[in-house]
């Protein structure tokens, strides 16, 4: 039995937990405001808000319901457009009307829901922030400028929002229907829901599995849902290491103070990873075990010299360097039944710098043609230690070990780069595919390798990048 609150209605269903939330909303509950555009999380037409109780407050996040398992809604508040509609238009709806932000209308609800989610969560509302909230919503008609104006209008209205009594303020100003105020108490009373955890197929956020195996999953009655497993999404420090739960999402990383302190450019880097909705859903471990050669978080964490913790069904744990997880294309060095339960990486010191680069056909909400990350420690003009990763240049995410070995203990000078680059080329084996020709990927990795240094050591490299 999956039990949750859908808009103002408590829902109890025996539908399979692996069914998509979208199908449940549209075809079981007959709420047709949520649209189907792509069924792979890439258009945002099916965006809903999912609110999870945290102490006494609810934290809402936008998610694409097309790749959300129904079971991940258990115990939560799911909001569709029908749950936002009132007699009068909400300020978000009104802003979209006034700005001409809707033409054919098919994507519109997704934009309204994403923007409404921003209203619920924004602490310091800005136009930029409101636009960021709709970075996973695609519109083919408007060219977006009118929607940007609507976002700016909303941000302006939100600047008066009370931080203490957010929900109350939003209800008073007509952003939300009255019933939102009662949801926390109602969620607290939902205690009978079960989260299945004995199935063979383990699902986290669903962002990859539902793209790859949509039809198979619908026929999989027994699944194991780990997205909401207690302690699986915490980020904390243990001595000289940072420890992440397997179900930590990209958004969790982005919003973590611990991570922000270590990585000043974290927001800019993670903004390159898919969209708000997908970052709210996709988990770190999911990104790793999916084993895509171009997983962004994989490249990111390999360069941090991360270790993963694998747990067997019997509870036995062992550790492995993340870079050693990959055997071949989509093949892992794991034993049957083992699961990735934790990620650990050493806290870098003051002399250490980190950078992440990614180029794709479209800068945001796209899969990399090539991505790469570097962590480099230098003192007195010499490289003490370096870890360099690259994605999209071979069958697995690559740790460029020979290049790292070569660079270690070398002087950090412009002359070093072309030499190191030659070794990079000998370590990679990109193929031509829809994301670019092999020659492009090789050339691009060279450029991104140089970009690391232009970003991290502008004082040395800015004018010395070989052109």
């Amino acid at each position, binding site marked *: 039995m999956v039990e949750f609150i859908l808009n103002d209605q408590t829902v109890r269903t025996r539908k399979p937990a692996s069914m998509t939330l979208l199908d449940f909303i549209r075809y079981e509950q007959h709420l047709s405001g949520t649209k189907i555009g792509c069924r792979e999380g890439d258009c945002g037409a099916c965006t809903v808000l999912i609110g999870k109780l945290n102490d006494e407050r609810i934290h809402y996040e936008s998610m694409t319901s097309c790749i959300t398992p129904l079971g991940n809604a258990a115990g939560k508040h799911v909001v569709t457009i029908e749950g936002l509609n009132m007699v009068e238009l909400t300020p978000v709806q009104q802003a979209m009307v006034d700005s001409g932000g809707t033409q054919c209308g098919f994507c*519109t609800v997704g934009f309204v829901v994403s923007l409404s989610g921003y209203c619920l969560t924004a602490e310091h509302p800005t136009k930029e922030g409101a636009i960021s909230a709709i970075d996973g919503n695609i519109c083919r008609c408007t060219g977006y400028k009118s929607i940007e104006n609507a976002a700016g209008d909303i941000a302006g209205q939100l600047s008066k929002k009370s931080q203490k009594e957010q929900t109350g303020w939003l209800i008073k100003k007509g952003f939300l229907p009255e019933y939102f105020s009662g949801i926390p108490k109602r969620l607290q009373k939902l205690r009978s829901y079960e989260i299945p955890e004995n199935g063979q197929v383990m699902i986290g956020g669903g962002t990859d599995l539902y*793209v790859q195996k949509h039809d198979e999953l619908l026929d999989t009655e027994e699944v194991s849902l780990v997205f909401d497993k207690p302690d699986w999404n915490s980020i904390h420090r243990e001595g000289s290491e940072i420890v992440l739960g397997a179900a930590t999402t990209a958004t969790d990383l982005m919003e973590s103070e611990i991570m922000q302190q270590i990585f000043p450019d974290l927001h800019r880097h993670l903004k390159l990873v898919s969209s708000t909705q997908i970052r709210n859903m996709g988990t770190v471990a999911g990104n790793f075990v*999916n084993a895509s050669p171009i997983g962004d978080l994989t490249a990111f964490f390999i360069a941090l010299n991360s270790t993963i913790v694998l747990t067997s069904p019997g509870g036995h744990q062992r550790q492995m360097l993340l870079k050693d997880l990959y055997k071949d294309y989509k093949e892992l060095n794991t034993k049957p039944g083992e699961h990735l339960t934790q990620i650990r990486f050493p806290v870098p010191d003051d002399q250490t710098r980190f950078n992440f680069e990614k*180029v*794709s056909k479209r*800068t945001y909400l796209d899969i990399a043609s090539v991505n790469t990350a570097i962590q480099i420690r230098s003192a007195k003009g010499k490289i003490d230690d370096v870890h360099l990763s690259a994605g999209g240049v071979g069958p697995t995410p690559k740790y460029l070990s020979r290049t790292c070995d070569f660079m270690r203990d070398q002087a950090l000078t412009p002359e070093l780069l072309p030499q190191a680059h030659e070794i990079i080329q000998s370590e990679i084996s990109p193929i031509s595919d829809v994301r670019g020709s092999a020659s492009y990927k090789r050339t691009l990795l060279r450029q991104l390798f140089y970009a690391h240094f232009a970003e991290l050591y502008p004082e040395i490299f800015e004018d010395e990048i070989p052109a």
Partner: protein
Amino acid sequence: MKNIDSKGHVTGKSLYLDDIPVRQGTLYALPVDSPAAHGRIRVLDLTKAEQSEGIVRIFTHRDIPGENQIGGIIPDEPLLAEDEVHFQGQPVALIVGESEHACRRAREKVRIEIDEKPPITDPREAREKGELIVPPRTFQNGDSESAWDSCEYVFEGRADSNGQEHLYIETQGVYAWPAENGNIKIATSTQGPTAVQRTAAQVLGFGMHNVEVDVIRLGGGFGGKEDQATPWAVMVALAVHHLQKPVKMAMHRMDDMRMTGKRHPYSSDYKIGLDKNLKIVAYEATLHQNAGAAADLSPAVLERSLFHANNSYFIPNMKVTAYSCRTNLPPNTAFRGFGGPQGMFVIESAIAYAAYEIGVPKHRIQEQNLLKDGDEFHYGQIADQCQAVPAWTEAVESFRLNDLQEEVECFNRKYKLRKKGLAMQPVCFGISFTKTQMNNARALVHIYHDGTVGVSTGAVEMGQGVNTKLLQVAAYTLGIAPSRIRIDTTNTSRVANTSPTAASAGADLNGKALEKACIKLKQRLCEVAADQLGTDPKGITIENERIQVNGTPAELIWEQVVHEAFMNRVSLSEKAHYATPVIHFDKEKEKGHPFAYHVYGTAILMVTVDCLRGTYEFDSVKIVHDCGNSLSPMVDNGQIEGGLVQGMGWMTMEELDYDEQGRLRSNALSTYKIPDIYSVPKSVEVKHLETDGHELAIRKSKAVGEPPLMYGLGAYFAILDAVRAFNPNTTLRFDAPFTHEKVLMALYEGKEVEVKEEAAGSILNESSG
């Protein structure tokens, strides 16, 4: 006026195909398509699929009672393949079952074996092998052959533009059910309800009167649902006919992308000659249109490429020949601009090439050659009320082109690894279906006896705001509040024999018909009012819902007159027919007056290229556009901005990728990228050119759907400008789209990392990130 649908859209209450409440007993349909692009079907084994859970029946061409033929212009396309398949994604059978999921699982069990033949994907190869959809056509004026000698400069080159996926966010869909006496009612997401009706009747062996087609609205069309909505509707109608149950199909994105045609890729050769004042003396081009495996609308698209081969320029000696080449891609089809953009890309490439070779800014050549009143187009029409120069001048002056150029030069001097580029993009686009006989429409207006009004026309609402404009026309003409009027669904039983909503002409044609019907009704009501008031009908008008006598408000309001008319048995319904006057075209001579009028405008685009990473961002696009006397500036600006961005997408990131076997590799939103909110220009400014508008435009508000798309062409040339600022020696290639890959390779031409041998295989369909 705002889009009248916007409240329904923001509340999710607007109904699309997949939102129609499902009737009891509804079955679901799913096409089985060819896995190979070319070959003979050796085995089609449906046994296991038929035995799959929840499957009711699987249809093949053998189940077609009428003709297995859906070709619109040329009868060359079967609904379901018989022996041969000609493109990957070609429908072979139709599975019908109790759920969509059951059908999808069953489809995995279909065994289809094909004796493959080598596919053709390149239109030039098709031409060499004589694979032409129709004989080539040539438009010409003057005498280009003898003009070359008088040219100071002559250049030759090649220009390629790739196709474009429509990517309407609502996929193709249809829901049909049996009506009485064997008739069928089809609700579908199409721009062409009559095409669906006609084709369904033909395939089922019915009369058209047996098929009713109803369209509520489309979640985007862009041409992709003009002809290509038809096969799915007809397949589903076939299933309804046999099973006598409601049947529905709402396509999954990958099926839609794989099975439907797109904007035509073109591969062209050009030759351009200029005099020393940079006047274009002569222009010749050969266009190879990649039509795909069947005609679809390709001949008509080809024709518009020829019409717009000169874009906004007067060229005294011109000869353009176009070939519609049959290949093994899905039949390519209408897409906003309809061949116009492809033809224009060639002349713009030729001008750019000449400019770089001569060493002058491209816009100097553009400016020198803009059309003026009295100039004769190569197809014989005389430019009239021509706004090419006013639009250009207004753009240069109000957006301060000189300052923008200086900004670019300063920036490029200052930064080594970032370069800016600038492009001017004039547009001239003819309004009317180029097939003269299609330029007609009808409207049906009912005034209900409570004073409210129902309007039906042949126009389909797909986001372009045609219903908003129609409502304005009716309200204005009748002199009543818009809130009294409802624009009904587009339905073949109410308005028959319609042209598709296409060619930017929907509001003009249907609006003019509606205006006529409203005028007739209004005259009739004025007579009733005159009777009531005991005065001469000539002095009666209706304004703001009140009767006016010689301009003075009378004590008589709209509702009273309507009621009086009803009580006196006066008809409150009217229909009207409109056919665009003036237009004609002689295909023998390839001369005539095919367009009611032209739409003009000029855009200035500025881009910044990151020369380290080979990526780019557009700083701004500034547009002066000729809307005439805009009925709805908000609707029109939406079309201008949306068209611009769609055109820019085609020129930049949207890359259709068919492999050598003719299989679509860019088959999902994860592999085919359209602009997102961050990839549009940081600022877009739109200024309307102040003109009187054109008599043949509805209420002098000019058609706006397609022309702005072609501002997007400037994106290619702005990027090229920036790339050349970084690497002046890079080869001048005109091969759109200008993807990040092509930018990087052009920036580092000669310094790219070469690959000698490559591992085989490909990686597809990863999730984002």
